[in-house]
């Protein structure tokens, strides 16, 4: 980072230098070629002019030499001409064509042809009369050498000029552009974004592009500072809010969980795991986390159906759910499920809020038990029995099974009550309940106290023509005939009359069945008590 500006500056300068050099080179190439062409042309044209001038200079002398055919004068003239290095050959001829004098440079003999010019020599007496010729041939090699020399000289001067200009340009560029830019770059680097620092305009650059660059950079810094300030404030707000929510999240007694669509735990607050679920987060295994719902709930299906309902209705759903606990104690939570549904109607997130309702649930259970059970014997009361029987009838109807109902009325109980008091009566009733429970062993069956000295047994899953009901009834009659010890060392004896009705033979409904059983019970009483009687078969009963 620190070396970057130096690299940039060097780069820019080098770039310029390379381009300028290349440009100069190309320009020199073209200019050199053009210049050479011009120089050669000029040199040749100058040579021609010189040739003519030389001829004009010596013409009268040459004419005299030709006029009098004087070799001495001719030699003098020719030698004079030859003294010029550009002249390769000179000759003076008389009017009859004979050479008066001639001289040539041996080495340039061949190169003379194209450049030789003949000048007519007029008579001194009559200028229009030609009395001889002056021939001057030029040395092409010399002209070329001169031209080349001149061209090179000019090229060198040109190259020097351009080179110096380019050098000056590069140096000026460095001073005027690169260094101020570099300075600005270093200052930009030194500025802490968001601080109040601003760049200074390099001296003498207030009204040019560099000044503009600095000005605009400062505007940018203003914006950055403003934005950062706003962002800082916003972040502080968000942090405060986050802190607030985090504290709520962490300290609330409400458990909060975020799950993915498979029920794996993504996030939760401490209350959920430690206070509600009762497990430590570090004790939780990966498998537990990935099947969080299946792990913590006794009936995960209830929660999954809640999730399905919430997904379908796009609303929160809630239910009381029992948690699985390590010590086997009952623990209930009220679970509110919300589902975040993605664009393709798939579940993205499952959010659950759980709060402990174990105490409330227990109170509710107590209340329900109170309503459904008989406080004295602990058996179901009439209401509880009716609820059970209704449900059992629904199941029997659905499964096509038979069901038996026994109505049991105690014989001689009123006498016990009157003779020994209510407490003794209650002791007998509790004893009756115990003996009946001891004989009605199947968990699917029910023993209930209808009220007073009337009891009901509901036996489910009875096969047609099953003798088990009658055997059970006989067993019950026998058992209840046994004497009951009561407080004060007394022993009392009672009996029981039992009416049996079967579903669907004796009734389709609870009322029908109960009425049939009642009728059968009275039949047993009439027949002498301490016995059981079956309901009248095939007797249709309304209701």
């Amino acid at each position, binding site marked *: 980072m620190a070396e970057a500006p130096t690299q940039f500056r060097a780069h820019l300068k080098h770039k310029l230098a390379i381009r300028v050099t290349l440009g100069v080179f190309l320009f020199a190439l073209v200019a050199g070629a053009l210049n050479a062409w011009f120089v050669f042309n000029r040199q040749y044209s100058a040579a021609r002019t010189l040739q003519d001038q030389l001829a004009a200079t010596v013409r009268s*002398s040459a004419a*005299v030499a030709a*006029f*009098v*055919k*004087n070799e*001495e*004068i001719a030699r*003098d003239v020719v030698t004079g001409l030859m003294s010029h290095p550009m002249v390769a050959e000179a000759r003076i001829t008389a009017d009859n064509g004979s050479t008066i004098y001639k001289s040539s440079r041996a080495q340039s003999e061949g190169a003379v042809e194209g450049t030789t010019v003949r000048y007519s020599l007029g008579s*001194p*007496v*009559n200028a229009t009369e030609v009395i001889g010729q002056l021939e001057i041939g030029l040395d092409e090699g010399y002209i070329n050498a001169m031209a080349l020399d001149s061209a090179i000289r000019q090229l060198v001067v040109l190259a020097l000029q351009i080179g110096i200009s380019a050098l000056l340009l590069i140096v000026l560029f460095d001073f005027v552009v690169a260094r101020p830019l570099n300075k600005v770059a270093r200052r930009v680097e030194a500025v802490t974004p968001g601080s109040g620092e601003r760049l200074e305009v390099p001296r003498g650059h207030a009204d040019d592009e560099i000044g503009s660059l600095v000005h605009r950079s400062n505007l940018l810094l203003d914006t950055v500072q403003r934005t950062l300030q706003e962002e800082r404030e916003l972040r502080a707000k968000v942090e405060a809010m986050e802190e607030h929510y985090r504290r709520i999240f962490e300290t609330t007694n409400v458990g909060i969980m975020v799950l993915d669509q498979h029920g794996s735990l993504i996030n939760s607050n401490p209350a959920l795991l430690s206070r509600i679920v009762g497990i430590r987060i570090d004790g939780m295994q990966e498998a537990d986390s990935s099947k969080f719902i299946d792990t913590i709930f006794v009936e995960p299906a209830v929660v999954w159906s809640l999730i399905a309902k919430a997904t379908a209705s796009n609303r929160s759903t809630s239910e009381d759910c029992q948690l699985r606990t390590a010590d086997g104690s009952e623990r209930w939570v009220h679970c509110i499920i919300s589902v975040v549904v993605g664009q393709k109607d798939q579940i993205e997130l499952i959010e659950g809020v759980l709060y402990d309702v174990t105490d409330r649930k227990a109170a509710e259970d107590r209340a329900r038990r109170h309503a459904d059970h008989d406080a004295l014997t602990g058996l179901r009361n009439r209401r509880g029995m009716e609820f059970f029987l209704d449900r059992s009838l629904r199941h029997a109807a659905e499964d096509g099974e038979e069901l038996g109902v026994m109505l049991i009325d105690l014989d001689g109980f009123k006498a016990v009550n009157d003779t020994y008091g209510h407490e003794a009566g209650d002791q007998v009733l509790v004893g009756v309940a115990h003996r009946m429970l001891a004989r009605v062993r199947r968990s699917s069956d029910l023993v209930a106290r209808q009220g007073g000295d009337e009891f009901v047994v509901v036996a489910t899953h009875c096969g047609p023509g099953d003798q088990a009901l009658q055997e059970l009834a006989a067993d019950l009659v026998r058992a209840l005939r046994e004497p009951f010890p009561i407080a004060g060392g007394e022993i009392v004896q009672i009996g029981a009359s039992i009416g049996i009705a079967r579903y669907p033979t004796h009734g389709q409904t609870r009322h029908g069945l109960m009425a049939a059983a009642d009728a059968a019970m009275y039949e047993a009483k009439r027949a002498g008590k301490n016995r059981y009687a079956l309901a009248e078969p095939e007797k249709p009963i309304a209701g």
Partner: protein
Amino acid sequence: MRSSHILGAVLGLPLLWLAPAAQADIAVIVHAANPVQQLTSRQVAELYLGRSRTFTSGQYAQVVDQGIDDPVRSRFFKDISGMSIGQVTAFWSRLKFTGQVQPPQNLDGDSAVLEFVRRNPGAIGYVSATTLADARVKTVLVLRE
């Protein structure tokens, strides 16, 4: 030679005095024995400017000139070559420096020229036509006024 100069001067002076009134023609003369009958002014010019050294007969020509400042000389060169005396002098000065060619001998006055031509068979000279009355010389060209 000296006496002939004086003589020429004595004889020539009155003639010269008469001459300006009506300028006489100039007669180019050769020895009477010279086979050349007639010369063109060009031929005369070539002889007087050193281009020719001989007559057409092959005989070597002894060319004599009038005095350097003689007005007739000026007329003569003007007539035969169109050159002024200055030009002629320049011309000869070029040739003289070579050391090989000498300009014609200058003789002062017609009588001196006449005398020279009379005596030398190869001579050629020029005189005023008015002074010409001699059978020993032959006029080959008359430069008319």
